[in-house]
């Protein structure tokens, strides 16, 4: 059994999450529904009796990209839920009176907010990619997935987006006292990620591994910057004297 304190805190958070059916179904169900929906899109719009549609690559990669967009949105909801939830229950103060450090608590909550949606997203993406390969193999005579672009999206950009999402939720949670407010802020992350997507569809930027690597680099820088803001927001003194 692990004695690493952030993991123990994360375990408790996830136990609470499991008991909130609405939260858990939202996290798990969304990526899974998406995977089924996208597989149907591939079947109906991209694959036809005459072959693959000419812009099939953009189509398939765009669908993969939507999993990244969810990685930017879902963790924020859970992080906000777990922090604002504690604010409402007033359970932060006794928690802070134990010999756990602010960093351990923040990390524990972040893990609990990051891990379940990320696993659900990876599971959903796997289903989508497997279904796509199944539907396109006959026409392409090679497996479309996995490829470099999807690898960058799912294993680099998505986790970085998830981290950004958690960090933003921590900062927003200190200012709002209901979960909805924090959720809305998480929803704001939709905008930059959709902007990249739309530029790609419009052809303004190429939608390839290189572009996605650059975008990942930008998100990484934002992650590092927000890390300092969120850890200074999540300090005992701040929480007890400044949080609303």
């Amino acid at each position, binding site marked *: 059994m692990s004695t690493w*304190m952030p993991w123990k805190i994360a375990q408790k958070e996830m136990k609470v999450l499991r008991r*909130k059916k609405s939260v858990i179904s939202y996290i798990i169900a969304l990526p899974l529904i998406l995977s089924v929906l996208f597989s149907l899109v591939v079947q109906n719009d991209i694959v036809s009796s005459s072959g693959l549609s000419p812009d099939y690559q953009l189509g398939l990669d765009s669908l993969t990209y939507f999993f990244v967009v969810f990685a930017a949105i879902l963790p924020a909801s859970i992080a906000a839920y777990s922090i604002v939830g504690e604010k409402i229950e007033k359970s932060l103060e006794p928690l802070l009176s134990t010999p756990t450090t602010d960093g351990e608590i923040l990390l524990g909550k972040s893990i609990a907010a990051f891990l379940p949606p990320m696993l659900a997203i990876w599971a959903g993406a796997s289903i989508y990619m497997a279904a796509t390969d199944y539907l396109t193999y006959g026409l392409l005579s090679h497996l479309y997935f996995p490829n470099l672009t999807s690898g960058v999206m799912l294993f680099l950009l998505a986790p970085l987006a998830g981290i950004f999402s958690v960090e933003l939720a921590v900062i927003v949670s200190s200012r709002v006292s209901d979960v909805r407010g924090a959720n809305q802020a998480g929803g704001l992350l939709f905008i930059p990620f959709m902007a990249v997507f739309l530029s790609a569809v419009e052809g303004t930027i190429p939608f390839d591994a290189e572009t996605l690597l650059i975008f990942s680099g930008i998100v990484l820088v934002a992650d590092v910057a927000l890390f300092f803001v969120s850890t200074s927001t999540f300090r005992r003194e701040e929480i007890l*004297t400044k949080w609303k």
Partner: protein
Amino acid sequence: MTEKEEEARLDMIETENLTRKFGDLTAVDNLTLRVDEGEVFGFLGPNGAGKTTTVRMLCCLISKTSGSARVGEFDVGKEEDALKIRRIVGFVPDNVGLYDSLTAYENLDYYGTLYRRTDSQRKESNEYFLKMLGLWEKRDTMAGTFSKGMKQKLAIARALVHDPEVIFMDEPTANLDPEASKGVREFILELKREKKTIFLNTHNLDEAERVCDRIGIMNTKLMAVGTPEELERSVRGRRTEIQLRQVTDAILDSLKKLKLRNLVREGNKLTVDVVNPEEENPDMVSAIVGAGGRVESVTVAGSTLEDAYLKLVRDAP
């Protein structure tokens, strides 16, 4: 004296000119205080007196602005001592702050984990406290469904899972009905028998008088500190009320010869400040009878902790 004995003599909590400001507002002003090991110390004061702020500083939850404080052998405000202090204190906040969607057992167990207790230590203390509080049967019930009294007791138990040396309680019986308050008070008395050091914030005078060894009256500054009896005596002595059939000039003349303090006549009732009623009352009665008066009743009204409290809090500048 050996080193060990010297250590045992240490006060559990000691503050000197401890001060906390929030912007321009001084919440705690030069608090100098000592709490002995094994003592139940009541910290009494009106709303906004700085009780919660004091306790938060002592538990290293918020920083102090100036002054110094020590809990156990550790310094409040010293970075490397904060964790050590939190390890030896138990804290019961004014809002219970339980996890509503965790069971009673899970609430205690989680805190055991946070205090880095082993599995077997946790199992033992969870069972011990839940049984002691009569909540064992409800151990698998979500804490959110508990009554306020049950929640409060669970919150106290949660602060005890690591067998702390000092327990800080912030108004543990506020918002409880008399029955539930009594339950909590009995729990505190039980801890007192176990020789725990308890720092009890309250604005319930009756409660402070019943459970505390010493009381500090706080109103941003510490106004007074002492045993409940000392505080009562500090306001003024006691007053004797004598009800007479008829007050005459002869009676008043003979009483004046006794050099009484603060003799007040209200109809046929006389009240006098007394220091030593056992001596002074018989003198007064015989003076009255000697002057031809008839005494219907003699009562001694002691000043109460409430008198002391109200005087100190109201007379504050």
